[in-house]
């Protein structure tokens, strides 16, 4: 009896201590994540400008988005283009550089550090402003191109055909985090695999595709998901480069930039909430697709 009571008391104390330490997070989660999510779902079915009470619209916002809002459709197009270009390019690039960096060389630690610098700085307003300067019509990129090839290149940032690609380039440039994760993955691959392969006469390139890539698939999956989620939410660079307007001709109107414009410029907060929920669904669907497909391309374990 007394033992039972002791155990009970210990359990109660365990629970109390657990929830005491968890309290800040739990309050934060309920008040600043869970409740706002429910609230924004509700707003998404209303017309709401923060001054007057929300007016119920049903699916009105969602219907308008997909049938009566060309800028919205454009922002979807721009964002998808950006995600599908920037994420794969960044990962391929990060993997190649990680491959080069995974050698026993002098100064290799220093090299890795230097290669991380673009990632350290890349997300800042300062670099976005620099990018705008570099790729403007009289910018450095054009004066280099002009002196090398004697051509008159376009005004990259000011041209709706190319503006998005300058932002893709800016994203790919920040490959450092993915590189470090790939490097950590590369270190896990046992040397014996490569030794066995070279005994069998496989060259470096064959080894890369037959050993390195398959062994890294779990890391690739991880990087792919994380990079995709953050790419869908890209904001700062597009805002700075286009002066907050998503121009020229909405060619850099990223999804989140349009959401910000709707919510905090026009104060159409119901509409912006609906946009946020569609974004959530898009990200969830793509994450699910990637995880589903991963059964067929990700190999766990010894890789034999």
């Amino acid at each position, binding site marked *: 009896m007394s033992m039972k009571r002791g155990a009970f008391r210990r359990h109660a104390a365990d629970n109390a201590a657990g929830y005491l330490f968890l309290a800040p997070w739990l309050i934060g989660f309920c008040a600043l994540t869970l409740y706002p999510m429910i*609230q924004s779902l509700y707003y998404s079915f209303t017309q709401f400008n923060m001054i007057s009470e929300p007016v119920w619209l049903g699916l009105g916002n969602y219907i308008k988005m997909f049938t009566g809002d060309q800028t919205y459709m454009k922002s979807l197009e721009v964002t998808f283009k950006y995600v599908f270009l920037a994420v794969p390019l960044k990962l391929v690039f990060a993997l190649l550089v990680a491959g*080069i960096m995974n050698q026993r060389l002098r*100064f290799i630690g220093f090299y890795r550090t230097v290669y991380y610098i673009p990632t350290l700085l890349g997300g800042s307003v*300062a670099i976005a*402003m620099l990018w705008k300067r570099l790729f403007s019509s009289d910018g450095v990129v054009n004066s280099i191109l002009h002196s090398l090839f004697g051509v008159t290149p376009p005004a990259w940032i000011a041209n709706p055909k190319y503006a998005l690609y300058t932002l893709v380039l800016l994203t790919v440039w920040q490959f450092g985090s993915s590189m470090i*994760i790939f490097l950590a993955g590369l270190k896990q691959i046992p040397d014996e695999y490569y030794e066995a392969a070279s005994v069998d006469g496989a060259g470096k390139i064959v080894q890369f595709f037959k050993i390195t890539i398959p062994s890294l698939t779990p890391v690739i999956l991880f990087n792919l998901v994380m990079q995709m989620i953050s790419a869908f*939410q890209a904001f*700062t660079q597009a805002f700075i480069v286009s002066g907050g307007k998503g121009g020229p001709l909405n060619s850099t109107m990223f999804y989140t930039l349009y959401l910000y414009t709707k919510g905090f410029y026009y104060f159409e907060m119901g509409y912006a*909430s609906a946009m946020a929920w569609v974004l959530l669904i898009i990200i969830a669907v793509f994450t699910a697709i990637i995880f589903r497909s991963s059964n067929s391309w990700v190999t766990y374990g010894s890789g034999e």
Partner: protein
Amino acid sequence: MNRKAKSLITASASHLIIIIFGILMLYPVIWLIISSLKQGNVIFSNPSLIPQSISFEHYIKGWSGVGRIHFSVFFINSTLVCLAVVACNIVSCSMAAYAFARLKFKLKSLWFAVMMVSIMLPTHVTTIPRYVLFHNFGWVDTYLPLVIPKLLATDAFFVFLLVQFIRGIPMDLDESATLDGCGRAGIFFRIIVPLSGPALVTTSLFSFLWTWDDFFNQLLYINTPIKYTITLGLRMFMDSSGQSSWGPMLAMSVLSMGPCFILFFTLQKYFVQGIATTGIKG
């Protein structure tokens, strides 16, 4: 001998490729720093990395500020916000991490799963209701919306990072501390916190840098120029001063990156640790 020569050649080739490519990649940053030290404005379309003469005129002009606000004000504001965020994240995230990694309580695995999902959640689903909430509190145009969420461990990412680290601390230490009469709080303060040093440094480092570079939230909540942080100050520079003052703006951009550089080079190993254990975004 032959083999040795061959490996020497491959190594040199690797060095060469890495260095050339590295310079190419860092060119924009190097160009930025050098151009900010050049004189006048025409030079900004000049790709050269060799300055004819060094001048601090852009720095002097930039530092004197924009819209009658001294640039140091933005620096001080950003530093204050960042330090507050670091302190809040350390306290709240280490508490939650200790609970998840060491304590036994009901629904623990449920909450842990919820926390992990919340890391992947796009922030925009909560942006508008949070804004309405903070607006109702009268917190808009103060730093509270930037800091208070951190006191409530909304950067669940760091909770995960710390959980991973705390799980690696031997349980024997907890047990012997219990025998010595330590309670759960005692274990937290005397064992877990002191031994989590590296993970806490990583948390502080990324908290600082992300807040320093954060644009979206600061844009949303801070409206009065005197309260502007660095990112908003730079943006004001860009908006208010046409083509004529690219120089001061680039100079201030360089300064704004200073703290990132210093932290990065002094605390390098914590960077790698943080990224490699949790796959920090970026």
